[in-house]
């Protein structure tokens, strides 16, 4: 049976507190870069499917 090291929980929990800010900021950066990539992909897909502007035959040379 696995025994949780609860007797000294404060020892490792305090260590975890030093890791939390890093995990948070890396998580935020990862989410924002995924969002950026999706937005760019959507933009690229949008520009690819939009009809090309046909040249105006009546336009002055």
């Amino acid at each position, binding site marked *: 049976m696995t025994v949780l090291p609860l007797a000294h929980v404060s020892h490792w929990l305090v260590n975890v507190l*030093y890791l939390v800010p890093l995990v948070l900021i890396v998580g935020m950066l990862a989410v924002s870069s995924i969002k950026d990539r999706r937005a760019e992909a959507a933009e690229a897909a949008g520009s690819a499917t939009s009809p090309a502007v046909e040249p105006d035959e009546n336009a002055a040379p």
Partner: protein
Amino acid sequence: MKRRRLLVALPAAVATVAMLPQAALAHGLVGRQDLPIPQWLFLYGAIAVLVISFVGLAILWPAPRLEAAAERRVCSIPQLLDAFCGAIGVAIFVLLIYAGFAGSQEAASNIGPTFIFYIFWIGLAIVSLLLGDVFKAFNPWRAIARGVGVVAGRTGRGALPAPMPYPQALGRWPAAAGILAFAWIELVYSGRSDPSNLAVLALAYAAVQLVGMSLFGIEQWNRNGDAFGVYFGLFARMSPLRWTREGLYRRTALSGLTQIDPAPGTVALLCTMIGTTSFDGFSAGPTWGEIAPRMTDSLRNIGFSQSLSLEIAFTIGLIAVVAIVAGMYQLGVRGMRSASRTQLSGEELGARFAHSLVPIALAYVVAHYFSALVTQGQAMFYLVSDPLGDGGDIFGTAQTTIDYTFLSANVNWYVQAGALVLGHVAGLILAHDRAILIFEGGRTATRSQYWMLAVMIAFTSLGLWLLSAAGT
């Protein structure tokens, strides 16, 4: 509704967790109990300062200020001063070598170990920040080489042969190797306290430097290959003062770092500087205290002796921590590259931003060794009177002792935490200034710097964790 709950739950959680360190302190943290807040809360304060600095830079620092900062000549310097300082450097070097061989072999009674590990390694790093590249003037190997050059030039029949061009690919790799070797001696080598061993190693280092200078030229080797010349030279670039043989110049603090050429090995050197200091802190903590005995036991089972097992285990630990630090920086650079979509390769980008690691390296030195410098440095009062430990009393101070209460635990902690915060803010400023130049300002520069902010937070967290772990 969810937000309200969060607003109530968050302070409650923080308050609950704030009680935890008291339990940890019961196991024997000495001297830091009267800090107004738990140690880990200093990290959150430090991160708040970093984030505020980051936002402030993005808003208030729209153009590069450090990259082309002007400098002013303060005064001229007599030509003889360089030679005079060099002669003092050589005299100190000779005294250390002599004391190593002829003096007491007890580390605390011989001037060698205290001078090398505290005054030279730590003290000179701080002096370099304040006064500029002082070591260059006192560098004994440079002084000897220059002296030999002058004598050979005057007595020889023709001009001395021109030095070989320094190989570009070699860059600062020799300096990185030298710093790693010195850290290994300081942190791993079991004979580090033996003054005669240190004297032999100092002579060997001097021989390598003289060969390097004779092959590639004094200044060229001094800039790239002399580990200590490069080490103190990097810290000196943070200083508002710059010395040349002709004069003293004043400049904006930190601006000297922007002039560092991104030579190969620069990132490796800085990661070695940060990593070796980190390992010193890590090896004093409980985590390494659990890992090291298991490693040494395994090595002893293979057949290694106790002392060799310990040295191998510590060598692995030292290299692993340097690799972790390098990995953290490379991750930040990769993120920056991806966020900025620059055409620069990861290697080029890493080298261009390497200068932002210099203040962090110094912050780590101050944070980890300040108390050692203040306490063990006091030994110099009696060692200058009795450098060999043979009962001499040249200046009448041989009977002085070290006052271990001189630096209170609280003041030490504030200096350590303050140094880490200031060092990382300086790193952010340098990275931001460079990003504006490389990414031509605007949103791309700011977006790229999110990753450097993450790197700074990572190093701050590591630094404060190491300090708190070493103290518990």
